[in-house]
């Protein structure tokens, strides 16, 4: 892959919380119009990686380039310009609790564009329709179910017609039907718009459904990277553990067993 056609380029990213290392030398590229799924168990640093792509945290080492701009070095103005082309759906939806859904979706438009209020109203209605929340504009976030809150968060993420869309565990904590609905919504967006997407998840079913490529994370490192088929074939024991849902204790038993076999040599 040519380095220039990567929309998101992560180079040698290492980060710490305090003295604890969370991510270790991550190298990843996301191509234009590709959907990359970051797959991994809880606590492996998926959200942390996403926060670095968003430049919400600064790495100890390494760089994140968005469309060629180094977000760790960018000025605030440059960063805001980059962020305008990104939309994010946070794990909890992250709707502003003091505003109605319509105002949540309208906020970026009101603050960052000079559009007329009537135009904004129309755009808000379109975005809410797009995520299946027609007629819910006047609801407060607290009045919604978890799935609806995520849909609303997605409508807000789409408000500025971003080129890059990032998701943090879009279907976590939802019942299977609602989760499938969100997955279908993501697939639909992928088909309809020329979006580059990064989806963080720990759910295999949705990962296999939406991914063009999957990057498998384990303890802050990318241990496998490839298409769905390639990941399914990957021989790395941690990948197989994840795919076959093997609990951690059994893994350790197996390692101990292997060590005991080789101990005599």
């Amino acid at each position: 892959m040519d380095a220039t056609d990567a929309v998101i380029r992560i180079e040698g990213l290492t980060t710490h919380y305090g003295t604890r290392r969370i991510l270790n030398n991550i190298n990843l590229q996301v191509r234009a119009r590709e959907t990359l799924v970051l797959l991994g168990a809880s606590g492996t640093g998926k959200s942390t990686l996403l926060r670095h792509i968003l430049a919400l945290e600064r790495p100890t080492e390494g760089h994140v380039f968005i469309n060629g701009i180094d977000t760790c070095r960018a000025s605030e103005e440059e960063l805001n310009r980059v962020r305008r082309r990104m939309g994010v759906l946070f794990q909890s939806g992250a709707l502003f609790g003091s505003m109605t859904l319509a105002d949540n979706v309208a906020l970026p438009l009101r603050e960052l564009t000079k559009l007329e209020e009537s135009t904004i109203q129309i755009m808000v209605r379109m975005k809410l329709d797009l995520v299946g929340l027609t007629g819910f504009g006047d609801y407060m976030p607290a009045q919604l179910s978890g799935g609806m809150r995520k849909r609303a968060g997605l409508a807000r993420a789409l408000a500025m017609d971003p080129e890059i869309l990032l998701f943090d565990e879009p279907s976590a904590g939802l019942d299977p039907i609602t989760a499938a609905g969100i997955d279908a919504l993501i697939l639909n967006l992928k088909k309809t718009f020329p979006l580059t997407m990064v989806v963080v998840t720990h759910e295999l079913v949705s990962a296999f459904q939406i991914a063009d490529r999957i990057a498998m994370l384990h303890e802050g490192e990318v241990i496998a990277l490839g298409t769905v088929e390639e990941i399914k074939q990957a021989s790395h024991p941690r990948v197989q553990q994840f795919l076959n849902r093997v609990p951690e204790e059994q893994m350790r038993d197996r390692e101990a067993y292997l060590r005991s076999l080789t101990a005599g040599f």
Partner: protein
Amino acid sequence: MGSLLAYVGRGTLNFLRYTGGIARLGKDAAYWTLWAPLRGKGIKGRAAIHQMVLAGVNAVPIVSLISFFVGLVLALQTAYELRKYGGTVYVVNLVAVAMSRQLGPLMTAVIVAGRSASSFAAELGTMKVGEEIDALETIGLNKVKFLVVPKFLALLLVMPCLTLLADLAGIAGGSIFTLYELGMPMGYYWTRATEALLLRDILSGLIKSVVFGIIITMVGCYEGLAVRGGAEGVGRATTSAVVTSITLVIAADMFFSVLFYYLW
């Protein structure tokens, strides 16, 4: 011994980090309040008015009531001592000067710290926990401009007003005592009070109140933005916002009182 040194060292580091954080937030808030609007970056006027209502208008009853009682008790306590020397008439001077130089601004600050520092910390802390602050930033909106500056502006304006009100209520409280206990006519009391007061007594109190307002906003917002770890973190930040802001208010009060005593 070693662990004691480590403890002191860690404490000092934490203190420096805290004051550094507050100072940085203060600098950002000053930039977005004073400088950015001049460069056409706008200011959230409606949000500021909303905050003025919450922090100022809604605090009027409690500030007046408490100051009124403080003034009344102050008159009573000074009369207790002054009557030994037959100087009960000086109760008026004492109440007027003590209220406007010291107790008006301080009581107001303590009440506002209890009401608003806690609510700032809780509001911003909840937003932090719910990833709302991250969402704001990724949209490309500045959290200081959107969330801190309206509160900052509100307290900058509201604190002197509430303090003036507290001064008045306190002096009025004193008049009730002198009227019923010492038989001093109201008219005489107020004339004497205005004669006793110099402009600088009132002004020095108002200057202090502005400083207290800055402290309360900065500590409340800083605590809120620094929240880690869920609902429990919000609770801790709220408590800490009140305790820290009251402590800093009293420290600042001491500093400014000494300054005004010698210089003005």
